[in-house]
């Protein structure tokens, strides 16, 4: 694990001058992940905000080898890169140790990219897949994805007079990944950067496919002031909407248990996409969201306690 001074001193793998929005948290997540990765890396990224803002030809923000293929296939693409690495290393045509990181947003991972991710995990390619979950199709203008929270207002599931935002609760992608029997998977947040740094280091040290799901607040999509990005990430953790936990070789470990679990409204009240939840007539929706957060949290705590017993 690195100190903040050490992290700050490491050369950036992403240059300044990219075109991310002011207050963009996904780009902060990328910086944190890349500064945590030491040694040679080759990166891939699915189509989405991060690919668009870092690679407008003839420029690139990437100081490491980078490939973008399409929206739904970064896991399959990096599978091919990693297979090439194994072939060429065996033939003596590549002499360096290289690690592979695939990045995808929630749409490119939870939805259209789930198949290629599942295939890569099942085959066991030696790569780290980082999902930057900003909870909607932000690059195309804030459409709901299966990662979008219940009742959130988006352009395709707006909070109207009859339908009040997204009807479903978010897919639990991290547990879907764990069900592939991967050696390591985790959830992380930019607000807890030490935890994120340690997780990236661990993921890259493990042989085989590893996965880190990073919550990545989006100021225009979630509709909060751009200076509050880190705070939105922190509150998601403190309300237990976004548990920080990891799964390491069969053992689930809860990394953070808030001293005082905050009500979900402490997180939702700052965001325009949830404004309608704070009206009296929609109190039942906020209650349903809270109930689901509590249910998932209690289930996770129990699973981690049982895991601890198996250690």
């Amino acid at each position: 694990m690195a100190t903040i001074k050490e992290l700050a001193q490491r050369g950036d793998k992403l240059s300044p001058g990219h075109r991310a929005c002011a207050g963009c948290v996904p780009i902060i997540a990328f910086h944190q992940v890349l500064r945590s990765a030491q040694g040679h890396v080759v990166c891939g990224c699915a189509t989405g905000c991060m690919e668009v803002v870092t690679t407008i030809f003839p420029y690139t923000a990437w100081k490491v080898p980078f490939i973008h293929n399409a929206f739904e296939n970064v896991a399959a693409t990096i599978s091919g890169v990693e297979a090439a690495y194994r072939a060429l290393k065996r033939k003596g045509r590549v002499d360096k140790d290289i690690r592979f990181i695939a990045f995808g947003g929630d749409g490119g991972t939870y939805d259209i990219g789930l198949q290629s991710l599942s295939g890569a995990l099942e085959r066991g390619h030696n790569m780290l897949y980082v999902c930057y979950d900003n909870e909607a199709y932000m690059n195309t203008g804030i459409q709901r994805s299966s990662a979008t929270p219940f009742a959130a207002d988006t352009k395709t599931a707006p909070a109207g007079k009859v339908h009040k935002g997204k009807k479903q609760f978010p897919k639990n992608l991290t547990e879907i990944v764990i069900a592939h029997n991967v050696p390591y998977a985790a959830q992380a947040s930019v607000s807890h950067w030490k935890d994120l740094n340690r997780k990236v280091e661990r993921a890259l040290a493990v042989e085989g496919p590893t996965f880190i799901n990073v919550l990545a607040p989006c100021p225009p999509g979630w509709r909060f002031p751009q200076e509050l990005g880190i705070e939105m990430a922190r509150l998601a953790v403190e309300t237990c909407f976004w548990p920080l936990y990891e799964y390491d070789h069969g053992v689930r470990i809860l990394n953070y248990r808030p001293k005082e679990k905050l009500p979900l409204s402490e997180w939702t009240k700052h965001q325009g996409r949830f404004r309608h939840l704070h009206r009296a007539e929609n109190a039942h929706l906020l209650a349903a969201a809270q109930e689901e957060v509590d249910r998932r949290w209690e289930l996770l705590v129990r699973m981690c306690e049982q895991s601890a017993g198996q250690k």
Partner: protein
Amino acid sequence: MAQIVALTGNEAVAEAMRQINPDVVAAYPITPQTELMHKFAEFHADGLVDTELVLVESEHSAMSASVGAAAAGARAMTATSANGLALMWEIVYIAASLRLPIVMAVVNRALSGNINIHCDHSDSMGCRDSGWIQLFSENAQEAYDNTIMAVKIAEDRRVLLPVMVTLDGFIISHTVERLEILEDQQVKDFVGEYRPERYLLDVDHPFTVGPLDLQDYYFEHKRQEIEAEENALPVIEEVSRAYGTLSGRGYDLIEEYRMEDAERAVVAMGSTCGTAKVVIDQLREQGEAVGLVKVRCYRPFPYERIIAALTKVKAAAVLDRAVSFGAKGGPLYGDVRSALFSNNGQHSVKVIDYIYGLGGRDLEEDHLHKAFADLKRVVQTGRVEFEVGYLGLRE
């Protein structure tokens, strides 16, 4: 010393792949391609190749992994048919526009919602404008030879484009034929080693593949891709001659069969050319001046060669094993007529089209006899009674 063997078309391509020994192969099953990858997987299991075999979860991922592998610096190959090719369509375009020299066998099969697993060319035709080079094979021997040549063509610095080598599904893929195969070392020497100028695994020279390419530059990149495809014509001729020297089997962009003094000709691709040759020999025995123009290289389309071959005859029938719905006739017909029109209209060739063999329906010798008889009537009357006809269709 060539070895004579009996192999199906699928086995012949797998054998070529074994000899090429690619760095990465991505595989996913689909009839009638499947046995090709079965055989290659056996070679892999027996340690006869040191390829990284990536057994992907879909054809979309097969092409995606091939793109990743080729961009990383590996020689990458894959194979598919029909719906599998359609599923990877998006990435087929990406492979060409990223200028990656991937080689893919396409075992032709009907692409349709009333599902069919037998031969037609609708799958290859769906990709003809994607920027890939497309080589059609007449038989197992050509499938084997084309696969070896495809690697050298794809990786030529003047080209750097992916290549599809086609085999007619079941007709070539599953039929055992006699063929000659080269020695392993001859193939390895012919294809050489893949040494890309820039590749992702060269971490000391990092670069970005597949950036966002907007109005400022996109058009120039397309122009470069257009020129690469045009450059492929002389490269294919060159590689084909070199392969002829090595194997004794010369190839060209097209093959003219008994065209020296032909008055009438058929234009065809794939296994049908073999049937056409049999019928032409029969008709020649009866004193009829008939011939065949076989299109081996379909993309890039050999316009000049088609013009030279067909302006010698009075009438020609194009045989299309695919439909261009809404267009007149099939895709090959459209290209042939375009070629003749390009000749400043300076020709008197009457051209008609036949659509045949869809969904694997057999083309019989009688059908070709009918086509040549129709052409004879065109020559005698000087009039084209129909522009598009059908062979073997109940009406």
